[in-house]
C-alpha cells in the first residue's frame, strides 16, 4: 500500500429531503484513503455509508465540500465527462449483483470494455482474464439466471475489474449471499487488493467482511465515529 492519498473527502456534507424534512446524511465529513487501501465502512442504516460510495464513484454530488479521487475533483467534473471517468477509474460491485439478465456472464463482463479503446479481440482477452480471476471461465456462456448467487457476484466482480480500474466500490457485496459464497467473494476482494493493488471501499454489515479489510471505519449520523486499522495489516 502506498502512502499517497488516493481518495479524499474534505468537509463533505450531503443532505436529502424526505417528506419535507431535511435529513443530513453526511455532516462535514473528512476522509483520506491511501492508494491500495482496503477500507470497510460500517454503521447503522442511514449513517451515510452508501452515500460515500456514491460520491466517490461520481454517481452523486455533495452539497458542500470536496471529493477527489486520484487528484481529480469528482464533484466539480462536468456531467458529460463523469461517465467516461467512471469507466476508467471505478468498478462497482452491488449487493444485488446488478447483472443484465439478457446477457451471458461473458457479455456482462464485456459491457464496460466497450468504453475502452481496446480492439474487439483485446476486449475478449480482457473479459476472459477477468472471468478467470474470479474462477468462472467455465460459466462464461451462462445467463445470470443460470448461476448461483455467489457465481453472479463473482461475475459482477469480473465486470468491475474488467477495465482495470484503480478503485473497487463494493456496496454490501456479501449481503445477499450464504456464508460459504460470501467467503469466496471476500477472498477474491482480498486478492484484488493484495495482489493487484486495487483500492477497495466496501460497505458492509457483515463482521466477517469487515474483518477481511485492512481498515474499518464506523459511521453514525453522517460522521466518522471510529477509524481502526487491522493489526498486522
Amino acid at each position, binding site marked *: 500500500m502506498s502512502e499517497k492519498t488516493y481518495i479524499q473527502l474534505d468537509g463533505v456534507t450531503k443532505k436529502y429531503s424526505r417528506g419535507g424534512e431535511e435529513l443530513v446524511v453526511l455532516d462535514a465529513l473528512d476522509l483520506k484513503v491511501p492508494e491500495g487501501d482496503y477500507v470497510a465502512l460500517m454503521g447503522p442504516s442511514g449513517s451515510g455509508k452508501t452515500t460515500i460510495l456514491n460520491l466517490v*464513484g461520481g*454517481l*452523486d454530488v455533495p452539497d458542500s465540500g470536496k471529493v477527489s479521487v486520484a487528484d481529480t475533483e469528482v464533484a466539480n467534473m462536468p456531467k458529460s465527462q463523469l*461517465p467516461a471517468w*467512471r469507466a476508467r477509474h471505478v468498478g462497482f460491485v452491488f449487493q444485488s449483483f446488478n447483472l*443484465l439478465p439478457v*446477457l451471458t456472464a461473458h*457479455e456482462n463482463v464485456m*459491457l464496460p470494455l466497450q468504453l475502452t479503446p481496446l480492439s474487439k479481440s483485446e476486449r475478449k482477452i480482457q473479459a476472459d482474464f477477468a472471468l478467470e480471476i474470479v474462477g468462472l471461465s467455465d460459466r462464461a456462456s451462462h445467463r445470470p439466471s443460470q448461476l448461483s448467487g455467489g457465481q453472479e457476484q463473482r461475475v459482477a466482480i469480473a465486470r468491475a475489474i474488467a477495465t482495470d480500474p484503480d478503485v473497487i466500490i463494493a456496496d454490501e457485496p456479501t449481503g445477499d449471499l450464504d456464508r460459504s459464497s460470501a467467503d469466496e467473494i471476500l477472498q477474491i476482494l482480498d486478492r484484488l487488493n493484495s495482489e493487484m493493488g486495487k483500492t477497495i471501499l466496501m460497505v458492509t454489515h457483515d463482521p466477517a467482511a469487515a474483518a477481511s479489510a485492512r481498515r474499518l471505519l464506523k459511521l453514525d449520523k453522517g460522521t466518522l465515529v471510529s477509524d481502526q486499522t487491522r493489526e498486522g495489516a
Partner: protein
Amino acid sequence: MVFPVRLALRHILASKTRNGLTILAITIAVFLLCFLLAVVKGIDAGVRSASATRLVTQSAVSLFVSLPMSYQPKIDAVDGVALSSEFRWFGGYYQDPSNFFPQFAVNQNRFLEMYEKDIEIIEGPDGITGPGARAAVQKALNSDRRAAIIGVGLKDEEKYSFKVGDTVPIVPAIYQRADGGSWEFIIVGIFRPLKERIPDQVMYFRSDYLNTSIESGEAIGDIAAGVYYINIDSGDIGDVVASTIDEEFLNGPQRTQTITEAAFASFFVSAIGNLPLFLGTIGGAVLFSIFFSVVNAMLIAGRQRLKESGILQALGFTPLTSTFLLIFEGLMVALIGGALGLSLAVGTEGLVQDLFGANIRNYKIDSNLMLLALATSSALGITAGLSAGIPFLGYRPTEALRSMG
C-alpha cells in the same frame, strides 16, 4: 457515445411476447395503410390521368338528363373546339346482372380520333395488330352499325372471354327493345387503356345504332347524346371555351355545364361520398391507435429498464445510452412490423386485383407507397422509443439504481 448493440438486440429477443404482439399490430396497421392508400391512389389516378385538353359538357340540371343531339354542330362551331363526340351511358349487362361492365354509345366517326392518346388498339378485324389496327377498326366501325370495341379486360376475364368477331348480346336496363330481347353488338376491335381513368372492362359502340333503333321503333327511349366529350386546341383556353359553350345554350332546351375532364372524373369519386377522405380517415385512425399501443409497449419496456439505466451509468455509459437503446428497440420492432406489413400488402396485390379488380381499379403498391410505409414505421418506432427513453434523462444514477425496474 458508445452503443451496446448486442444488448439492444438481446432486448428485442428477450421480450418475445410483447415485441411479437407489437410487431403483429404494426404489421396489420401497415398492411391496412398500404391497402387503403393504394385504393385512394387508384381512385385519384383516374382523376390525375384526365386530359388537360378535354372538356365535358353535361346538362346543368343533372348528369342524368341527356343533352340533345342537335347541340353537336353548335359545339363544333365554338372557337378552340377541335373535336366532339356524344357519350351516352347504356347500362346493360351480359347474360346476368352480375356480369356488368360499362357500355357507352359514342360517335363512331370521331371517337377513335378523339381517344388517340387514350387507348391503343391491340387487335382489329381478321387478327390485325400493330400500326394498321386502328384504321382497320375505324373501317369496321363504319361498316356495321352493331360494331363495338372493347377493353382488353373483357377478353382476358374468363367469364367474358370476348374476341374480335364475337356477337355479344347485352340485356338492356334502360333502352328496352320492342321485342323484349337483347341488343347485339359485334366486336370489331380490342384496345388497351393508356390512361388510368379508362377501365379495361368497357365497351364503346355506335350511338347511331341506339338512336336509329329508337327512331324506327325497334327500341324504346329518347334520342339524345348523353354528354359531350370535347377535345380543345389547348388547355390554356379551357375556361374560355367552356363559358362560350355554356353561354351558347343558356336559352336552349337544356342549359349546359361544361367542365374539365378531371372535374368530371372527380364528380364520380365524390358521388360515392368523399371516399378518399373516408378511407384516409380509417387508415389514419388505425395508425393512430396502433401508435398508442406501440408507445404503451415501449413505455412498459422503459419502466422495466430504469434500473438497467442506473447500472449502465455506473459502468460508465451515459444516460443517453439507455434512451438510444429504447429508440433502437422501437425502431427495430416497428421496421420488422412495417416490413412484414408491406410484404403482406405486396404479396396480396394480385389477390386484391383479382378479387376487387372491377371495383378497385389501378390498385398498386408502388415504390412511393413502400417508402411511405417504411418511413411511417420508422417514425412510429422512433417516436415510441423517444417517448419511453426521454424520461431516463431526468433520473440521477442513484435514483435509477434504487428503482425496482
